[in-house]
């Protein structure tokens, strides 16, 4: 194994890792936003919104994320959507992650005992007041772990945007393979950096999960 080469290219990989992190953060924010809206739609009392929510989930979970990215980035200009690769990556991955998060958030909300909402409504709270004062604070605690799983998958999925040439970790590894012919070292380096990112995020999620538990 060529450690010398790895040490030499390492700073470039580190820089690419920052792009991966930025991509992950933006994707997570967009994903959470879409997931919250999606869950709200899935749980709405309006059938049309429930249908839209369900369609969103099955469409984006039912097709490869890579195809979704390709349609957005390569197909987009054909229908007047001009995005640079990074933007397309964030939007494509964010909407995709949102579909998974929709189910996570919905799962958290519906797992709260029916009696909680009833008790709140009985006191005179409106449906919305019961939701945000009673249901969501409890559901949010239950969601930390499964959302952590979504986050883990989302970080790994950022590797896909290499295919639309966003200069993140995976793309960088591929590029250095072109000039060094050392795929083992280059992919290993990228893999280790992914692992560090995912490990840190995983610890953060575990910490948050412990922190929000009641007592």
């Amino acid at each position, binding site marked *: 194994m060529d450690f010398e080469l790895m040490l030499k290219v390492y700073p470039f990989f580190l820089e690419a890792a920052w792009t991966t992190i930025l991509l992950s953060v933006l994707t997570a924010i967009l994903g959470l936003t879409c997931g919250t809206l999606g869950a709200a739609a899935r749980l709405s009392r309006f059938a049309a919104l429930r249908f839209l929510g369900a369609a969103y989930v099955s469409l984006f979970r039912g097709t490869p994320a890579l195809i979704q990215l390709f349609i957005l980035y390569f197909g987009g200009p054909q229908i007047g959507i001009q995005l640079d690769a990074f933007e397309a990556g964030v939007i494509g991955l964010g909407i995709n992650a949102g579909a998974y998060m929709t189910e996570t958030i919905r799962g958290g909300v519906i797992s709260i*005992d029916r*009696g*909680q909402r*009833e*008790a*709140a*409504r*009985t*006191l*005179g*709270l*409106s*449906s919305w*007041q019961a939701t945000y*004062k*009673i249901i969501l*604070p*409890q559901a949010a*605690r239950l969601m930390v772990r499964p959302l952590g799983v979504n986050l883990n998958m989302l970080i790994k999925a950022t590797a896909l945007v290499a295919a639309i040439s966003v200069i993140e970790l995976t793309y960088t590894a591929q590029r250095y393979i072109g000039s060094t012919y050392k795929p083992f070292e280059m992919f290993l380096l990228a893999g280790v950096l992914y692992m560090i990112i995912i490990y840190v995020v995983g610890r953060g999620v575990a910490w948050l999960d412990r922190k929000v538990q*009641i*007592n």
Partner: protein
Amino acid sequence: MTEQTDFVEIRHAQKSFGALEVLKDISLSVTRGQIVGIIGSSGSGKSTLLRAINDLDPLTGGEIWLDGVQVNKSLPHRQYEKHINEMRQQVGMVFQHFNLFPHMTARENVTMAPKMLKGLSQAAADKLAEEQLDKVGMLERIDYYPSQLSGGQKQRVAIARALAMKPKLMLFDEATSALDPELVEEVNLVMKRLAEEHMTMIIVTHEMDFAASVCDRVLFMDKGVVVEEGPPATMFKHPTKERTREFLRKHIEGAK
């Protein structure tokens, strides 16, 4: 419209869950300060009737009136929500499984709704919480979370939470059924104290002795109808209907 004495009035209440008719033309009126017990076997519709009173299980037919106002009147959705939230503020409900908010302390459970709906200041809310929790003997546990309380203590906090809204009417749906036998009495005592204060109450219960000791009237329900009703002395000692006799035989002898 309604006579002044009819504080709660249920007129021809009918409720179906799909094809299953759970309440069949039930009429009932309760005067102010009266304590009505509802007994009956499992599945007879007791909870459904109680929950219809504050519209948790909306009726499919008939009317519910509270203090001269129709609870289940037909209004456009938004207006109905506003109306029903106001009505529910006047009706306290206590559930078999307490349904305390686990992410809030006893104090927060009690003050949440008054702060939110009546705009109480923190100081006023704290005073209210102390007052109400003291009344149910839970003042020392004011800053405990539900998970740190026993079943009987949880139920007493739940009663305090309902009372904090200063309801005109209290509904109890088997408030002691989920409790260990040795914890039943402390909750019954709280309810007895409310009875002495002339709170209007409708109490669904499986405890015949308790019903006999606090209720002014007892209703026996079976298969969605009120089979028989009367003061506890007559109901428990000289029931006239065979179905009532059979139920009481099973229940009073079964308990011994």
